[in-house]
């Protein structure tokens, strides 16, 4: 059951990663070339998933859109980890100190802000673009990783091997890097997968309200937004990008679950 999750999830995610990679060198049709005469055609031999309202090939759009989604989500998670993990490590290393308190209250504060509103505000300041979507999603990833790292690190700080490292004269920073970080990596991998899938959902949501990647770069969320008014007579335009989001997120979540089972011995034991 566990391994199955990992396999199905991995396979689904791989399909989209491969599609994104392939799109770098080849797509069935150029997604920037419009073909108004062939607009809104259902799936056919020439266009497997049909064409959109500008006559672009939906399959090609989904492939390139995968690239956008994956890139945005990946970088956003990267930002979250890059900032959140050091903060979490620092907070744990100085547990109970002013620094810890500041970091944790800061986290609470970010959590308290409605994320979509902040994204809207960020784009109101800097304009809509994939970069700003990344920043908006990234900001909200920071407290997630900071908290997770801190709680994971706190339990590690009570381990005897940390005590042994201190007896060896190592400072908090060094211990955090050498002992704590490698041992919270499992936790981070699992959460990273989940945040990645949430990032894809968030990117879709932002693009859907027009705040994500700008045309002509295809993005799944914008494909849905574009298809919205046509759903009653051209359902294929909404169906395929929607399914692409659904399946990718599903795949990543399944993979996250599978990874958790694989990497987290505590859960493995509890479930045995």
């Amino acid at each position, binding site marked *: 059951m566990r391994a199955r999750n990992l396999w199905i999830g991995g396979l689904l995610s791989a399909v989209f990663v491969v599609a994104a990679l392939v799109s770098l060198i080849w797509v069935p049709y150029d997604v*920037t*070339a*419009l073909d*108004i005469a062939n*607009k809104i055609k259902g799936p056919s031999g020439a266009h497997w998933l049909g064409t959109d*309202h*500008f*006559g672009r090939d939906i399959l090609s759009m989904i492939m390139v859109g995968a690239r956008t989604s994956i890139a945005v989500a990946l970088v956003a998670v990267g930002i979250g980890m890059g900032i959140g993990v050091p903060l979490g490590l620092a907070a744990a290393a100085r547990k109970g100190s002013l620094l810890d308190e500041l970091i944790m209250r800061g986290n609470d504060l970010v959590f308290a802000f409605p994320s979509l509103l902040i994204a809207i505000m960020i784009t*109101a300041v800097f*304009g*809509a*673009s994939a970069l700003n979507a990344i920043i908006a999603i990234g900001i909200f990833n920071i407290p997630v990783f900071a908290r997770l790292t801190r709680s994971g690190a706190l339990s590690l700080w009570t381990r005897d091997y940390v005590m042994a490292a201190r007896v060896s004269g190592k400072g908090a920073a060094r211990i955090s890097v050498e002992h704590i970080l490698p041992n919270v990596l499992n936790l981070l991998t699992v959460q990273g997968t989940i945040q990645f899938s949430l990032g894809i959902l968030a990117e879709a949501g932002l693009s859907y309200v*027009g705040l994500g990647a*700008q*045309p*002509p770069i295809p993005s799944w969320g914008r494909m849905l937004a574009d298809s*919205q*008014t*046509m*759903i*009653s*007579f051209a359902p294929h335009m909404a169906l395929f990008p929607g399914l692409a989001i659904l399946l990718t997120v599903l795949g990543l979540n399944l993979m996250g679950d599978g990874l958790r089972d694989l990497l987290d011995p505590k859960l493995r034991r509890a479930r045995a």
Partner: protein
Amino acid sequence: KSDIVVAMQLEPPHLDPTSAAAGAIDSVLYSNVFEGLTRFGSDGSVNPGLAASWEISEDGTVYTFHLNEGVKFHDGSAMDAEDVKFSLDRARAEDSANAQKALFKGITDVTVVDPMTVKVTLDGPNGNFLFNMAWGDAVIVAPESIENIKTNPVGTGAFKFTNWVQGDKIDLEKNADYWGTPAKLDKVTFKFISDPTAAFAAVMAEDVNAFVGFPAPENLPQFEADARFQVLVGSTEGETILSTNNKMPPFDNVKVREAVAHAIDRQAIIDGAMFGYGTPIGTHFAPHNPDYVDLTGMSAYDPDLSKKLLAEAGFPDGFKTTLKLPPPSYARRGGEIIAAQLRAVGIETEISNLEWAQWLEQVFRGKDFGLTIVSHTEPFDIGIYARPDYYFQYDNPAFQQLMTDLNATTDPAKRSEILKEAQTMIAKDYVNGYLFELAFPTVANAKIKGLWKDAPTQATDLTAVYWED
């Protein structure tokens, strides 16, 4: 059935037509609740409104308006010459927040002759004055209701304002004491549905009886095919243009602008962005206007010519520029198509989608743009080309002279001649890319009669609307 739910996309920010640019205010209130001295007819003609008749002095600078008898505001007070004077003075005052202050620019004095007569003096003859007085920004308001006008508008129209659920709807009811032909409906509800999908769903589910300015042209064929509905596709005063920053290199070169014009396939844009709704234009003028000249031939789709022109202008490999798009779908969709068409001749555009506030800030006021798409919906607005500081920065003294002449001219034939020359001049200068005249689709229950088809101004005049049994 004597009540109706009419939906539209935009909600008025507040209910004072004389202190905001929002067309949505007029859409709800113009001629339904508020009336001016003159009023627009459904064909765009200027007809008597609160003024039953008027005389114009020989030199064209003094207008004497005779008001209709028995006109009452909704609060019961009588409308008289004092109210007219108040309204016009308020609009042209120093601290006035009227969005179209230019309409009142020439007025030097407003005098009450007697309760039913008012005299307006201009600083010079103005051929547009009666037209100007028909605008929503020139409606007559009462001084005693001015305090709360933004939330409780009190006018003289055939409907009275009753209720506003912000974010949702505005209710009007029939004004029993109306001075003119009374309305046929007892109750009117305006509902605001900004999302096009929601708009489609609301009409389909018959949650609303009519949708004026239906935002998604792609859905119109479905309504047309459905016997429950009628679809009226009217004309508007909205010239949709590819505005070009005439001061920004390389667009300061007329060859480049001409190249852009020939790179654009209007029909593809109308088909792709508007699903076929819209009339191609070749200049900044409404095609339904009798003075319109069809100049589309001057900027026919010819990518090869376009490339040649670019090469002549010194850009054989094209260039890069920005394309800033405001929210409406004509701009967003049209922008994508134009970007693709320009790319075909070597012009790379970087698209950025902006909110209105950003567009106003960056494009309109900041003039920080290469290209943009926008529909100029003000009626009869070719005069903007005479303003060198206007955002597309067209500075041509010859054209400015034409407009001065036009304002001073009252003779219809002469005016027509000047207008035609003006149209041709801007088309020749390829000031902007002229795309199409915005269509105005209204979807309504098949049994509703008396709706305006065209939109000569942003108004939803419901005074003559009724349900057919």
